[in-house]
């Protein structure tokens, strides 16, 4: 008994010592949320902590939903999300402000027997939607053949593969389907975890890649990072102006720039950059990756967060961080006017900090 008590006492003392160390840290920032953004956040936090001693950043990959809800209730400092704040979310989490930190996209991958690598298939929204609704069953369907007149398709069954977990990739993918196909919009809609009519689901992009590569006749979707890492063939998707564009760092950036230069694009960034944009090389299924920050953060933390955001949007955008982890860098200049407004007016901090002194 005594031994147990003594051990427990020692453990308690140890815990208290640990807690003390935690308090002594100058500032702690916790980032949690999107699994897609996680690799980039890891690289960033390493680099940032090296150049800003005294700031400690802990990063976790828990899913966008977790990131949004926990940033709103103050459990974490920054919530990472692949999806912007839709009207519903904005209503529920009114204290959140979204700040874009990188570009990503969703691309369609396939495994069609008899079609060689590099064949560059073309696809448009309505056809893709009908495949994912189970209304097109075979690869040699007339709709697919009409889009790809030069390719001979086998009469093999299409096996629809989608994400089973709630995912920002799915949100961006279903966003494209919902905006291009009336049927899809009415029956399924856009969601991080929609109710899929057909197919089979897998947990995580890595599992989707594995399933598509292993299953003859499969079609699936993943983000830019996975395409690059596994040298996958993706389909060229039809954009607003009728061009078929493949997702690359350049075409995704073109989409982002087109959005930021559009004067009707909202000040708070809360609008999809899927489909609506014009331009020859604009990829129609790109998205911003967001950091969600609550306006209710304490003043000193808020200042640290702002410094981190500014660092991430300038020094953090170099290719060795962004492109290497599967993202396309954000252009700072077109971002600046909207960003200034958010950082200086909506997010408090500068004034509050003076009161709290040191």
């Amino acid at each position: 008994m005594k031994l147990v008590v003594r051990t427990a006492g020692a453990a308690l003392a140890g815990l208290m010592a640990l807690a003390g160390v935690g308090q002594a840290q100058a500032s702690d920032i916790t980032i949690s949320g999107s699994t897609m953004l996680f690799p980039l956040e890891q690289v960033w936090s390493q680099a940032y902590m090296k150049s800003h001693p005294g700031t400690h950043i802990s990063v976790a990959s828990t899913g966008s939903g977790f990131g949004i809800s926990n940033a709103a209730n103050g459990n974490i400092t920054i919530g990472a999300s692949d999806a912007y704040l839709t009207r519903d979310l904005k209503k529920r989490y009114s204290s959140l402000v979204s700040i874009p930190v990188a570009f990503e996209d969703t691309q369609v991958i396939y495994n069609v027997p008899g079609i060689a690598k590099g064949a560059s298939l073309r696809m448009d929204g309505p056809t893709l939607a009908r495949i994912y609704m189970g209304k097109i069953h075979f690869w040699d369907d007339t709709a697919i053949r009409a889009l790809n007149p030069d390719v001979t398709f086998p009469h093999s069954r299409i096996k629809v593969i989608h994400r089973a977990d709630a995912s920002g990739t799915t949100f961006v993918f279903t966003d494209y389907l919902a905006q291009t196909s009336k049927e899809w919009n009415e029956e399924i809609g856009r969601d991080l975890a929609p109710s899929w009519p057909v197919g089979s689901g897998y947990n995580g992009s890595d599992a989707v890649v594995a399933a598509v590569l292993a299953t003859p006749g499969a079609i699936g979707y993943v983000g830019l990072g996975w395409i690059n890492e596994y040298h996958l063939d993706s389909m060229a998707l039809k954009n607003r102006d009728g061009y078929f564009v493949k997702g690359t760092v350049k075409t995704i950036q073109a989409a982002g720039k087109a959005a930021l230069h559009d004067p009707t694009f909202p000040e708070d960034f809360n609008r999809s950059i899927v489909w609506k944009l014009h331009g020859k090389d604009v990829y129609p299924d790109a998205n911003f990756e967001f950091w969600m920050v609550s306006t209710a953060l304490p003043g000193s933390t808020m200042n640290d967060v702002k410094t981190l955001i500014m660092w991430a949007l300038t020094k953090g955008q170099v290719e060795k961080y962004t492109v290497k982890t599967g993202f396309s860098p954000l252009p700072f200049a077109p971002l600046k006017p909207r960003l200034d407004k958010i950082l200086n007016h909506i997010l408090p901090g500068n004034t509050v900090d003076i009161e709290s002194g040191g």
Partner: protein
Amino acid sequence: MSSPFISEERPFRKSPDRTETPRKHKDVTMAAPEHEQGDSLLSHGDHRPPVVAPLSFLSPDPDEVRDAQELGRSAPSTETTLKNLRRASHSQVLRSERLFHLTLRLGGLFILLLFATVLGVSVVEAWPSIEKFGWSFLWTPTWNPHRHIFGAWTYLVGTFWVTGIALIFAIPIAILSALFLSDYAPKWLVGGVSTLMEMLAGIPSIVFGAFGIIFVVPLMRDHVEPFLANTLGRHFDFFSGDAMGYGILSAGLVVGIMVIPLVATVTRDSLVMVPRETVEAAYALGSTKAEMVYFVKLPAVVPGIIGSVILGFGRALGETMAVLLLVGNQASVPTSIQDVGYTISSLLANTFTYAVIDPLFSAAEIELGLILLVISLVVNTLGRELLLKLMGGRLAGSVGGG
């Protein structure tokens, strides 16, 4: 058994009425052996804890006399033990007794509290969904978070499909292997195979899931499923379909592999416990070994088999990681054995972190969890009851399930 333990236990049993609170005496006798065991373990070095020694007052314990003689001391006389007894403060003994008793009670209470908390929090959190959908939640086939329609039907069906396939696959193999181990296997093999089987039960499910992806899925996709479709599938739609690999069949088989050790160990244990007389009587009546096993042993262990199967059912029902990797995670009611499906536990694992964003969505998911909790609670209780009735509690520890 070490002699101090035995010798210390005895006086307590003999003289409960000497303690000053007769009201407590039942508790004292019950708690005493454990208490003393703990003490004697701690006070290994000085051989005799001071609190207990005076209590062995009536007759000098023979072990104690021998011990003392070996140590070169004279055996303690009745008089000295009585003196010791007077010196020992009864209230001190009682206080430590009461303290120990309280500690035990706290431990027991904590378990109850824990269970009540889990159940209570689940019900409270699930309430919006229970209130909105009522019983129809059970048979509504739609699950659409986007439109706020939630129903458990597809997930319930998927769960029972995977569990069913697992049991159909596991039970015959488990019973055959149990019979082999109890009656036919050479002695040198029994130990090894039994140990392996118990180890199999302890392997984390994610390992089985990974095994399923790299081995079972390609096997199903390239060989078993096309074969099924070309033979049975020609006559019954139930066996045809697109060979995909992933689906309820793969998930069921892998869960079945995980259930085999559980069913087999329990069945083997009950087979071993069939009275020798019964077996010998069967031989005396002229039956062969096979006849004895089939007509005498097997009927005798049917309750044990049923109990173990129910435990296996509980295990298969809640299996999450392996199923999630293999079942295909598609919310549709399977019509063929080659179809994909979705189980309650894998749905929760996949989407719960997202569901927290919407109160009704998370309520519906927690209600699903609650359904799973109730089913496995009922099933496990039934299985345990059956086993206890059969084995008189000897197996209660080994059938943890999980």
